[in-house]
């Protein structure tokens, strides 16, 4: 059933009897044209665009838990396209364009909310670095504004301007940036992909690969072997583990990033604000919770939880930026396992194993990439060539030295 005001009214009047499952719960078929491993945003978007853009509908998305149980379901939902390097910017802007029409396309309200992303700066050097970034965005036709302290104050008068250790001197603003409802993105893609015939197989873990010689010809799962012409990995934090089963070693480490939500509050913060003198960023969800986070814990982890020092560090940043938060209560904190790549940028590429394709290395920034990642991965899977916006995201760039290192910290994932 199409979702609309009408369907809502009708069902309201008839005791919600008309609704059907948002997606089917099929049993695995013996073989598919394409298998996507990983039912996060990226995997589901890939399946959707395979079906929708490339007419490849004999597709399965295989998810070990429930869809959205990975980082798609636990991120701080920031979407933006304020990247610096030419290897990244066109891709993230393409993603932003897709966000902007996503809800109508999927017939699902993912609450894409373009209330602005503001990155604060506290020194001249930081300002110039943001200017460099803002200019790079403009060169690609993307909106960006460099604000001075007064410009920031006009938007967020309650930040600590008076008593700060690192005074706010301005910020880089992307008005088109903002947030989207994480779960809705997953569900929207799942429902739309399902409607086009994609099988979503939940509670089905990929435990190995089928192969003929070098070529990958399918997957082993907890629900039996499933064959496929092509297998695409979109398993984010589990990338090394799953790719390892195909004998691959990758330039990726798994790290935990924590996220935090406060009790629900009346509107307080309109857009997204990031603190440039500490690790802290914050926005407010449509339900009223302040959603915030900071730096990664910094050690390899698969545990989906972090430790007190980072929690304290994040809240120190929060209080330094917004001292009115002192009596706001933290409701819940959790962690997600991120696929931190060695230059902090993603990989969308073939692998040395024919038939096996890789979508990984999203670090703490892949939610915003969900639509474009799906689009470009589908493109690669369908046509065996990189999409024009993802050409730099090659796996061999580490070998050749064509790195996409936005932060300039080098081959140390925990610093990206």
């Amino acid at each position, binding site marked *: 059933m199409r*979702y*609309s005001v009408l*369907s*809502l009214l009708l069902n*309201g009047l008839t005791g*919600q009897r008309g609704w059907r*499952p948002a*997606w089917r719960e099929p049993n695995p078929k013996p073989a598919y044209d394409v298998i996507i491993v990983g039912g996060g945003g990226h995997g589901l978007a890939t399946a959707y665009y395979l079906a929708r853009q490339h007419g490849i509908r004999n597709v399965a998305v295989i998810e070990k838990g*429930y869809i959205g149980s990975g980082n798609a379901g636990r991120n701080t939902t920031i979407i933006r396209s304020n990247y610096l390097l*030419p290897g990244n910017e066109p891709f993230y802007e393409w993603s932003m364009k897709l966000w902007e029409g996503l*809800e*109508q396309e999927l017939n*699902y*309200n993912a*609450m894409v*909310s373009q209330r602005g992303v503001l990155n604060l700066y*506290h020194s001249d050097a930081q300002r110039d670095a943001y*200017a*460099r970034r*803002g*200019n*790079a965005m403009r*060169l*690609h*036709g993307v909106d960006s504004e460099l604000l001075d302290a007064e410009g920031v104050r006009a938007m967020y008068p*309650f930040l*600590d301007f008076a008593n*700060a*250790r690192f005074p706010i001197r301005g910020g880089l603003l992307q008005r088109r940036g903002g947030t989207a*409802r994480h779960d809705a993105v997953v569900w929207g893609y799942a429902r739309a992909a399902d409607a086009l015939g994609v099988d979503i197989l939940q509670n089905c873990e990929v435990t190995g690969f089928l192969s003929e010689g070098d070529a990958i010809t399918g997957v082993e799962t907890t629900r039996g072997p499933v064959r496929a012409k092509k297998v695409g990995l979109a398993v984010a934090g589990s990338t090394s583990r799953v790719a390892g089963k195909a004998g691959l070693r990758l330039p990726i480490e798994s790290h935990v990033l924590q996220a935090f939500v406060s009790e*629900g*509050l*009346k*509107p307080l913060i309109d857009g997204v604000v990031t603190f440039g003198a*500490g690790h802290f960023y914050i926005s407010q969800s449509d339900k009223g*919770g302040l959603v915030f986070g900071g730096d990664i814990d910094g050690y390899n982890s698969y545990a989906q939880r972090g430790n*007190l020092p980072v929690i*304290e560090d994040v*809240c*120190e940043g*929060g*209080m330094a930026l917004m*001292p*009115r*938060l*002192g009596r*706001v*209560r*933290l*409701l*819940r*904190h959790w962690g997600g396992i991120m696929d931190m790549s060695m230059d902090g940028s993603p990989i969308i590429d073939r692998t040395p194993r024919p038939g096996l394709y890789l979508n990984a290395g999203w670090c703490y920034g892949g939610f915003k990439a969900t639509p474009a990642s799906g689009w470009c991965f589908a493109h690669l899977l369908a046509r065996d060539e990189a999409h024009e916006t993802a050409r730099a995201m090659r796996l061999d*760039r580490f070998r*050749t*030295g*064509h*790195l996409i290192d936005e932060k*300039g*910290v080098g*081959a140390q994932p925990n610093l990206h």
Partner: protein
Amino acid sequence: MSPLPANRRAANRLAAGGRIDRSRTLAFSFDGRRLDGHPGDTLASALLANGVKLVGRSFKYHRPRGIVSAGPEEPNALVELRGGARREPNSRATVTELFDGLEATSQNRWPSLALDLLSVNGLLAPFLGAGFYYKTFMWPAALWEKLYEPAIRRAAGLGRAAEAADPDSYEKVNAFCDLLVIGSGPAGLMAARTAARAGARVILAEEDFLPGGRLNAEALEVDGAPGHLFAARTLAELAGLPNVRLMTRTTVFGVYDGGTYGAVEKVSDHLPEPGPFQPRQRLWRIVARRAILAAGATERPIVFGGNDRPGVMAAGAVQAYANRFGVAAARQVAVFANNDGAWRATFEARTAGLGVAAIIDVRSEVPPALLARAQALGIRAIPGGVVTATRGRTLAGIEITVGGRREQIAVDGLAVSGGWSPNLHLTCHHGGRPVWDPRLAAFVPGSTPPGLEAAGAAAGRLTLGAALRDGLEAGARAVADIGLIVHPIEPPKAEDEPAGIAAFWHVAASRGPAFVDQQNDVTAKDIALAHKEGFRSVEHLKRYTTLGMATDQGKTSNVTGLAIMAELTGAGIEATGTTIFRPPYTPVALGVFAGHHRGREFRPVRLTPTHGWAERQGAVFIETGPWLRAQYFPRPGETDWLETVNREVKAVRASVGMIDVSTFGKIDLQGPDAGAFLDRVYINTFSTLPVGKARYGVMLREDGLVMDDGTTARLGESHYVMTTTTANAAKVFQHLEFCLQVLWPELDVQMASVSEQWAQIALAGPKAREVLARIVDAGTDVSDAALPFMGVLGTTVLGGVPARLFRVSFSGELGYEIAVPARQGERLAEALMAAGAPFGITPYGIEALGVMRIEKGHVSGNELSGQTTAADLGLGRMASTRKDHIGRVMAARPGLADPARPSLVGLKPVDGAARLRAGAHLLPPGVPATTANDEGYITSVAYSPHLGHWIGLGLLARGPQRLGERVRAYDPVRGGDLEVEVCAPCFLDPKGERLRG
């Protein structure tokens, strides 16, 4: 507020009993209405005592809500406490300790609690089922941002955050113990006492202000005396032991790795304001070898139509209000239950003086002893019945159905008990999953974090006798584990009261909305809808309906909700499972995690050795990382920083100036292999550096990009001192330690940071030598011959002060860096000022320093971006080809060795008056401004007073081959777009004659 006369008793205060101090009265207000209570009251007990039943509005439908619990699980009675900068939204009245002058305000209602316009949402409820917003608000797209979302956001949330900075302070404390006992009910007390008597270091943490747990809320006896007396006695014993720390008002909120527990102590929340020098709250990081979770259990409701009407409460809460607070939660109650414990609660309430209309038990078989006792107390027992509706604005009556027959009963309170859920939250903080115990109809702890064990009700030992025994045994096990000897202790005598239960969740045949999650307004129907739409896994159920996502995190609703889902899917509760519990156990103020680290104290400030001197010189300071450094030194009459900086630069170039450069990292390297070591970490060679000489060095990361640069001097055959950039000081030190300890442990090198030991002042300008000559001690020759460019000299200055003189130059002038022990820094600065006075010596700040290094084309932080190679910076030729060094191999990768990479150039505006800005991108002239045409960017700019125009450094594709070309400096974010000429990155004295002068 002046209290009422102490003798006036509030309407619902029982004549006697309770752990409250009736001799004192506390005045408080709710929605501006002045009321009073007693010490020992919570806000909730005091409100109930005053007959206040309506205290809040629910999240979505704005339904009127009352108090349902007597503990932290409260979903409904949330209020704003205090006001102004101290406003605390969403505060649970049930755990708010009453104090004199407390102001509480209801929230999420407009215009008033009694008349809330948004309660129309309730009428729209049929259309606002779970997840309705995902299905609508999409057309037309533009309205989302303009209309729908703003409206949704306005409606969202409950309370309002404070509008000003939190005026109170917070602090953090570390504690260590053998055993942490979480909860001071019978189990916790026994665990703590057992361990303490065995000599263990024990911390007993209790969330409540009154320790004792359910012993305060129930009337059971221990060792023949009321339970609360046993608690008091045990607590007195513990308080007297030096190895025990008793902490009340302290919630253990999270279990972290390595036996680290997070706890928050509410030091001053029970006071109008923190006392002098007292924080509002303290964060405790407790490292415990063992921990016992004796957190008790939480009573669950039963879901039925109209179950959210104010007046419907948990049975154990009614019991607690009666026993602990001396309050009749209602005058006439009915009880609706599925278990034996609720009967006992009822009897106690009756004994305390409440009227009891009936006990309705879903079970048709109830233990005869309970029936007999009910009869003895004159209570009507209705086995096999259910409540099918409620009525009244606040509860006025219920409808029950027994054997197909309906009956109305007039009551103003309904005490409900669906059984008890162990408070096992903390056992799940490491990902452990609870296990379903059908006998208890409850989840009990499964695998627990290392070192943590649950005991008492938290472990599913729900009776008093069992809790006491279990606490004792768990305490004994814990201390035995860590090697202490436990002498046998006799458990106190207490009853194992009947605790039979029949699982029962939901009265399907009831009328009216039946709420599962009362705060987020999730109804049984919503669960059915989620089921219908395929959101059947508990995690999807939670996320789709928001069940359990409110401030109470589903403490009373999770199990019921998943049980209803399990009924729908037929999968059973065990297979359905629970959602994961995450910290914090109860919500914790953000401020306490920050402690003192906010405002100016967010991070410690580092001061240079000449800070005070610079202050006296009128310096303007600027943060550079942790340091405060002098940015420039304005003089009276100067109106613009650029005017000041120009003066400073000119003065240096014309005569002499000085600047504190102590912030550079300084690393002392000694040992026979020091030279060989430096050869491996720098791209150039240091083993051949003569003693008494310094050399500029560049080091790479192993991936081939530049990590840092600086000069390193050889002080002796096996003694070097290295300087690093300010920003990278710690990183370089750590890197060098890695090289020495991990890569090449065979190298005999001893490293020490001497960054703090030495004050270092750069003296620069044509007159620098003359000034220097006046401060060195007699016999020190600083002539060009004795101390040539890049020469180093150890000597004394100012009459015996040990000093190191380095003839180096960042400014391009004849220059020295003079290092003296840090405490002599100011003396040196003043001596230089005096010695330089005849030459007009000018203190300069880091702005002027920046100008001069840009004029000289020296790279700095902006160029050492971590994205540049040595070749990019024009330093490639420095690399020795005769030796290996860190990063050599990887630097040869094609992407890094590509000659087309943007490389360092100088830039000057074609229009001499134009201003350059760092961050502008470089494009060929006459082509569209697009990414494809982007050829680099400006890294650093300065106004050169020497040249009379702006200059810059930049990274430009094939830059060094393009000298003389014009490119476009494109800076749309600042409205800049101008032509610049590419030139060599050295604007002044390219041959270096001045610095050798």
